[in-house]
């Protein structure tokens, strides 16, 4: 017994060892603090927004139109406008994005041209949203003569969110093991038959996750639609599901929040907070859906 403690002692009880352990504990707490420093603002901000928004948060707020010069009333036209913009941008961006990801992951070899495409995807993701707005204005509103319209705004959004779809679809495709493809090629299937029969069925939930993330990104963007098709106010019937034509301008939730916060004096406080909560709620719910889908998919994965 005496021998064993004599051996163990140098490892645990020297000043050096104690200092080492202390630094270790301090480091762990500091890093934990840094991680918590991001969670606390998120939770407290959301809680504060909901608290302030509470007087206006009800069903009527969602389906009513803005009243008294936007100082009171609801957000229906903005809600529908956001659905229009997101829907059309999704219809454009999803096919192009998924096919581009299929090209990059299934067809492209490692040569300079495909590296250039990768670089382009990375840079497209990094272009500031206001530059996308300038592009939309120059290309769709003026050059293509779509004017200030839902079409111009959604196309701008589509190009802006394309890299989101490409990146996540690629990740989903890359997670299908190479041996699956090889097995399929060995029975004589062509490249496309392999993609259709093996790769896509095994990665479809991952692709869907990316598409859902695109929706959440598109719903929250303001700058790209501000100068291409979104307006401060548009007269719409309460509860009307199809108030806009594709060549009309429309209201959008994100734009509406910006307007209420900066352009309209004396807005009832709870109205602007409630608008922020609805926008935040839509985006976070959609994201939570994507995360839930991903977790579910990972749990039932068989390889």
């Amino acid at each position, binding site marked *: 017994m005496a021998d064993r403690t004599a051996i163990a002692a140098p490892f645990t009880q020297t000043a050096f060892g104690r200092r080492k352990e202390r630094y270790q504990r301090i480091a762990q707490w500091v890093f934990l603090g840094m991680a918590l420093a991001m969670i606390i603002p998120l939770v407290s901000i959301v809680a504060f927004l909901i608290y302030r928004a509470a007087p206006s948060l009800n069903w009527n707020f969602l389906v009513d139109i803005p009243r008294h010069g936007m100082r009171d009333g609801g957000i229906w036209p903005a809600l529908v406008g956001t659905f229009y913009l997101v829907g059309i941008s999704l219809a454009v961006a999803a096919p192009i994005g998924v096919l581009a990801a299929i090209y990059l992951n299934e067809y492209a070899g490692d040569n300079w041209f495909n590296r250039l495409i990768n670089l382009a995807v990375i840079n497209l993701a*990094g272009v500031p949203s206001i530059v996308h*707005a300038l592009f939309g*204005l120059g290309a769709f509103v003026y050059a293509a003569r779509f004017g200030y319209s839902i079409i111009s705004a959604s196309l701008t959004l589509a190009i802006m969110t394309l890299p989101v779809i490409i990146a996540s679809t690629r990740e989903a495709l890359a997670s299908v093991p190479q041996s699956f493809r090889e097995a399929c090629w060995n029975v004589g299937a062509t490249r496309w038959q392999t993609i259709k029969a093996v790769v896509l069925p095994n990665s479809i939930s991952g692709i869907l996750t990316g598409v859902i993330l695109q929706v959440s990104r598109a719903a929250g963007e303001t700058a790209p639609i501000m*100068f291409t098709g979104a307006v401060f106010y548009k007269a719409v019937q309460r509860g009307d599901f199809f108030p806009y034509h594709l060549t009309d301008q429309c209201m959008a939730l994100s734009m509406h929040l910006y307007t209420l916060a900066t352009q309209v004096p004396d807005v009832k406080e709870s109205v602007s907070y409630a608008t922020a909560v609805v926008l935040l709620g839509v985006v976070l719910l959609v994201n939570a859906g994507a995360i839930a889908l991903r977790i579910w998919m990972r749990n039932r994965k068989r390889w």
Partner: protein
Amino acid sequence: MGSADLVGADAPERPRRPRWAVWGERALETIIRLSGVSAIIFVLAIFFFVFREAAPVLFNGHFNILQFLFSTAWYPTSESNIRYGTFALTLGSFSVTALAMALAVPFGLGAAIYISEFSGPKQKETLKVIIELLAAIPSVVWGFIGLTIMNKIIVAVTGAPVGVNLLNGGIILALMSVPIIVSIGEDALKAVPDSYREAALAIGTTKWQLIYRVLFPAAKNGLLAAVLLGVGRAVGETMAVLMATGHAVQIPHGVLDSVRTLTANIAAELGEAAAGSDHYRVLFLTGVLLFCITFAVNLTADFVIRGVRRK
């Protein structure tokens, strides 16, 4: 041939795919290839269309590119002497970004280290989900938070006359760029081979010694790329800084001064500038400048990351 010999003359012919299927597949693959190239087309198109709107002002004789880049006098609607100097705006962008990074880099990398090295599987999953949700908050909501909540907090704490200033924008931008720093930083730490960790732990290091003696040097490039991508996000952010930094075009002397950034300037003035006017074209030129800045930052980040992969 061989199989025909084996089973006899009346063996069924090897099934062929109908011609439409072959051609359909070829058409589809062409579409796939075109979509693959679309990213390049869009990046070029963005540069082309933004530059096309800006170009006429460059060649109209009385526009001075040096004044545009290095003068602090931004008077686009002056009656007597119109001047387009963006230096104060560029400085505004850089000061907000620098402040945001000073806050976001330590916290972001610290959180990345905690997630990658200290947390258990359950905790790790929870933290990553929260960071993903943090990244999803739209920039206009951040701007709204800056304008309402942060504004009041800053006035109450510092006693400044207005709460929408450099400090406000810096904090908001820091919160916005932390998620990208955490997720890329965590990827970089994950990419360090486990054998490095095992070798260090085997000679009796603590986790903390492991982190600053082994992981930092090994993941250096990946962590640098994480910071660069955070910078790219912060420089390009529009709505949050538009709403949170105040609107004064000036060189900031302290964190409580209002500033205006390149992005916010475009968003604030594009609506008022008549299409085709010099003012309008100069705003597009500012867009070209921004495009080039973020392009350079992202390109550098990509080279840094690929340097790691090659190693």
